């Protein structure tokens, strides 16, 4: 997607965010955030008291005025963080929204391709529309007839067109994408306002954001801490009166606001929005924040072998003839059988034959050959030419075809001899095949005129660097399971080569579902990706189900994330983003709480100095005066929010190391750092405040 690469504080974002910050002061909006709502209440209260003093004439008005000003700044900074996070999402949403403008649809009214032109917004689920070359697809839907190349750059950013056709796993189309060639009939599956793009816009703008489970729990913790500090501060006036004095309300409010976890309270929703935003930048669309959070918790990752662990296609790497057959003869037969085979495997055989034996491609027409395509029943393909027939395919299928019809392609007289010879040949082919399978390859038997020639070694090529990624996942505590249709022997070999922890061989959709249920019964969270309709039940069952954008509508509906790039390896990044989201929240909470130590040392001596001058000993920072100490603390409390916005939006750096070292590192930075930083910060602000004679 050609999204604007927004820097954190670009002018285009900051302006609207500032306006948004002011608008968000509305208490009805603030109440969603208990900590900041409390700040707003006390800010309003002190403002009223200040105005009364202003009219009635009170002392220290400059000081109270400044405190109150910073209280409001604290609120504005918090809102600014949220508005900025939303603004970044909005900037992305804008480019999406452009695709939705003024679309018309050709709604089919009956048979014979008769249609009426209606606005895209009036389409209902189940309508059939015709989309011709050059038309925009009016809404999300499923291709029910035809095949077409579609430009999906509007949502994926990928300019190469993709094929969409009825039936099969590539039948889903997205509203706003453009048909480049041919025409298709699309059944609408999403009404206006609830399409893919609509949901995406709503999510990145933060409009439909709901609190996630961890966020709810964290909010309870923060509200609880706020209450603790209500008790701590509310009891001070009577303590002071016991000591024979009184504390101004504005000072109590300043202490209270600096103690309650405003830093994390202010940034909490920004962190959530930014997490969603990071996913979208990765071209992954999560249907809910809950899914993103669950991604961080994933224990088991189910990965399809093909396309994820291995390169999509197997490649021929060797010809292995049986005894008495020349390698070149086998290569020649295999090449002939593959000439018309458009599959990548077939191509690779032709390439290998040429590379190894210089066998050139021959013209099928000239040879008077007819191609016998692969079917699921025969599990073979091949070619018939000049009375001779060549077959290649699954080993057992090829052997079975020979015993079934021994005389069909042979002379009657030779039949007996052939039959006597074949069991030995079959045994040899089976031996070779087993050997290949053990090595992780796929054997392809080749037979010519009823005689077995040998086996082509098709090898799965494991993607470069994937082994390291799995090692990384293991360090993160995530178990990887490879899903494949291969037989157990082949699967084991590839699993070993790729370094996955486990594999599921000869997997049917039911096996997949059963595996997920088994893992979940152990309390584990499972993530998987899939694209086909038969993946839908497993996608729905998995805690994190990533549907490929190229997949079927059923798969997309079943998953809770959609990967617009249809890249299954992205699952690994998604997990990282989920973890980062949780880590950022934890880090800033720790930081926020740790900050309180320094704030106490700033405010408590200042507050009680008039009552007990001895408490000056607690003024370890050597702050200039009680008023400047209190003011510095509240200024620090407000400014730290701004200072941490980049961290909240970018997220804490995640490293795939064990939990213990991760925690040690983060505790050191955000716990210990959180204790030390405010001592320095408050002192620095105090120097500035007293230099400027503000207090």
């Amino acid at each position, binding site marked *: 997607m050609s999204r604007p690469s927004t820097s954190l504080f670009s002018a285009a974002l900051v302006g609207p965010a500032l306006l948004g910050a002011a608008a968000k002061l509305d208490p009805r909006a603030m109440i969603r955030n208990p900590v900041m709502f409390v700040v707003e209440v006390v800010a309003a209260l002190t403002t009223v008291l200040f105005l009364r003093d202003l009219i009635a004439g009170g002392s220290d008005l400059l000081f109270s005025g400044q405190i109150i000003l910073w209280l409001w700044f604290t609120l504005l900074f918090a809102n600014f963080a949220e508005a900025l996070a939303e603004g970044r999402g909005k900037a992305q949403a804008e480019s999406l929204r452009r695709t939705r403008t003024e679309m018309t649809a050709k709604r089919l009214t009956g048979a014979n391709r008769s249609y009426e032109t209606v606005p895209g917004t009036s389409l209902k689920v189940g309508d059939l529309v015709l989309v011709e070359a050059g038309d925009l697809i009016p809404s999300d839907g499923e291709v029910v007839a035809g095949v077409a190349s579609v430009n999906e750059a509007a949502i994926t950013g990928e300019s190469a067109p993709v094929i969409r056709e009825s039936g099969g796993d590539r039948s889903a189309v997205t509203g706003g994408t453009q048909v480049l060639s041919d025409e298709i009939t699309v059944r609408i599956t999403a009404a206006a306002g609830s399409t893919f793009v609509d949901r995406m816009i709503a999510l990145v703008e933060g409009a439909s954001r709901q609190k996630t*489970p961890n966020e709810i729990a*964290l909010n309870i913790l923060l509200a*609880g801490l706020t209450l603790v500090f209500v008790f701590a501060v509310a009891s001070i006036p*009577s303590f002071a009166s016991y000591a024979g004095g009184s504390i101004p309300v504005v000072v109590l409010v300043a202490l209270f606001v600096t103690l309650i976890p405003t830093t994390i309270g202010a940034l909490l929703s920004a962190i959530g929005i930014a997490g969603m935003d990071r996913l979208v930048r990765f071209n992954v669309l999560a249907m809910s924040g809950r899914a993103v959070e669950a991604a961080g918790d994933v224990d088991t990752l189910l990965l399809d072998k093909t396309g994820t662990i291995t390169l999509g296609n197997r490649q021929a790497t060797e010809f292995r003839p049986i005894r008495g057959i020349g390698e070149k003869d086998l290569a020649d037969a295999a090449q002939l059988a593959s000439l018309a085979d458009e599959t990548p495997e077939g191509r690779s055989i032709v390439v290998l034959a040429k590379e190894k034996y210089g066998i050139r491609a021959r013209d099928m027409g000239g040879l008077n050959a007819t191609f016998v395509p692969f079917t699921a029943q025969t599990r073979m393909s091949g070619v018939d030419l000049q009375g001779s027939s060549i077959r290649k395919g699954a080993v057992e299928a090829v052997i079975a075809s020979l015993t079934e019809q021994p005389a069909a392609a042979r002379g009657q007289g030779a039949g007996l001899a052939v039959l006597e010879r074949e069991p030995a040949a079959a045994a040899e082919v089976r031996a070779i095949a087993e050997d290949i399978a053990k090595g992780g390859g796929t054997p392809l038997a080749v037979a010519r005129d009823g005689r077995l020639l040998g086996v082509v070694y098709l090898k799965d090529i494991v993607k470069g660097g994937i082994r390291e990624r799995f090692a990384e996942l293991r360090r993160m505590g995530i178990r990887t399971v490879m899903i494949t249709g291969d037989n157990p022997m082949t699967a084991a070999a590839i699993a070993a080569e790729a370094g996955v922890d486990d594999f599921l061989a000869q997997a049917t959709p039911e096996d997949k579902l059963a595996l997920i249920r088994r893992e979940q019964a152990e309390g584990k969270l499972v993530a998987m990706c899939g694209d086909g309709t038969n993946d839908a039940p497993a996608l729905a069952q998995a805690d994190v189900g990533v549907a490929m954008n190229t997949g079927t509508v059923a798969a997309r509906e079943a998953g809770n994330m959609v990967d617009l790039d249809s890249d299954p390896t992205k699952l690994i990044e998604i997990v990282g983003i989920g*973890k980062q989201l*949780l880590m950022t929240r934890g880090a800033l909470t720790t930081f926020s709480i740790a900050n309180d130590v320094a704030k106490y040392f700033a405010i*408590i001596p200042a507050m009680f100095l008039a009552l007990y001058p001895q408490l000056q000993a607690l003024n370890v920072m050597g702050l200039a005066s009680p008023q400047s100490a209190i003011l510095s603390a509240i200024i620090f409390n407000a400014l730290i929010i701004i200072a941490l916005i980049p961290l909240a939006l970018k997220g804490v750096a995640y490293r795939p190391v064990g939990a213990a070292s991760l*925690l040690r590192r983060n505790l050191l930075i955000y716990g210990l750092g959180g204790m030390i930083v405010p001592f320095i910060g408050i002192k620095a602000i105090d120097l500035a405040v007293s230099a400027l004679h503000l207090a």
Partner: protein
Amino acid sequence: MTLNGWIQIALFCVVVLALVKPLGFYMTRVFTGERTFLSPVLAPIERGLYRAAGLDERQEQTWLGYAGALVLFHVFGFVLLYAILRLQTLLPLNPAGQGEVAPDLAFNTSTSFLTNTNWQSYGGETTLSYLSQMLGLTHQNFLSAASGIAVAVAMIRGFGRASTRTLGSFWVDLTRATLYLLLPLCVIYTLFLVWQGIPQTLGASVDATTLEGATQTIALGPVASQVAIKMLGTNGGGFFNANAAHPFENPTALANFVQMVTIFAIGAGLTNVFGRMVGDERQGWAILAAMGVLFLAGVAVTYWAEAQGSSVLNGLGLTGGNMEGKETRFGIAASALFAVITTAASCGAVNAMHDSFTALGGLVPLINMQLGEVIVGGVGAGLYGMLIFVLIAIFVAGLMVGRTPEYLGKKIEAKEVKMAMLGILCLPLMMLGFTAVATVLPAGLAGPANAGPHGFSEILYAYTSAAANNGSAFGGLTANTLFYNTTLAIAMLVGRFFVKIPALAIAGSLAAKKTLPASAGTFPTHGGLFVGLLVGVVLIIGGLTFFPSLALGPVVEHLAGSAGQTFGTGG
């Protein structure tokens, strides 16, 4: 500070640590219903009790059922004890002819003993009959301790079990804790104390003629049996007003040492039960280690402060440690150690007057209680209190490893956080709230014996001790008034049940969850990192709450004292 002092402290730690495993092993067997070496004798009695009560011991309870049984049990216990105290003139075993106990004092005392606080607004030997002491108080000493242990065991089951709704049976846990644990230990312990010289008699007090010819009444009674359970059950309510400073309650150095050990024994052993029942003893050791770190820090500060002595006296040339309010028999080290132990655990027995400690020396007991008495703590209460802190620590830190926080394979979610916060919130509400009320109301201001920050500390200490169910008194506060009796009783009730019930709710919620297998992504909770984290969270959450009140009490007193300023008497 002397080497001898440090050796006493080290010896204490070694003996307690040595007891952890055997006690943990035994208690685990008791609470998992397995046979113990006492079963041949006790099992028939146990079965008989269940049959008499019509109880099916295999019938387990949900957390609500468990909590309901707990509350019901204590309501009846309260009514019984209140009645005994009010009616003691009509009941037997009152050789000294003690009068009836006033309603507010009876309310305070009943609450105090059923909550395992043992705050004593009365002087035992001048107020209570032997029947009140034995049937009323000693009885509650056993049962309040057993109920604390029961809740801890139920909470441990919450962590140890998976996908179940039940936490065990309150009645069975209560019976086993009393029958298999407290009673046998107390029988042996009482005999030991009698050997050491503590009286155990139903005879009336003895009149002695002093050298000056005056007549002195020497109070006696069934002391040893009550002392045994007051220590083992972390009750702390003394038979005599002077508590463990009285020669008849604490006659020898050996008795003093064993009393200190027995305060910690069961609480420390329960951490091992926790480890065993969740299937990894190291988890229990980690929690004990966190408690140990906090404990040693407290001991070091108190011992140091007391050994330094009063700076005002030092200024007058009277150097040496602070011996005011201490028994010369015990000296500074044993007094400081006892003070930290009794407030770290929610015992409240004292062998010296905390009121007379230096400002910093008195600060430590105060903080120990304000942290919620999670440093070993009251029997059972210390463990479930600490586990609540563990949940908070795990929740905040767990997020930092990028997963939904989990502890022992249990996800910590909104419900647990809510209940944990409830358990944590009730303490500052009671401690700070009532102190704030008492420091402005005339009825409250009439209490303290001293003016200035020390008087403030006396009030703060009283409510802190009550809400934390400690029961030790700072001294100096005249607490036997309608105002203090009532407010302290409320603090005790809230401090006990608003921690216990949330703890059970957490246990219920955890038991219903699946137990997740650990992976490299879950951070280990048996290492030094976790111990450090837990200590940090206890100090920060607990410490920050009470910083202002401490600054106005002991801290300012210490600073003023250092500057040579005193505040005189008031109240």
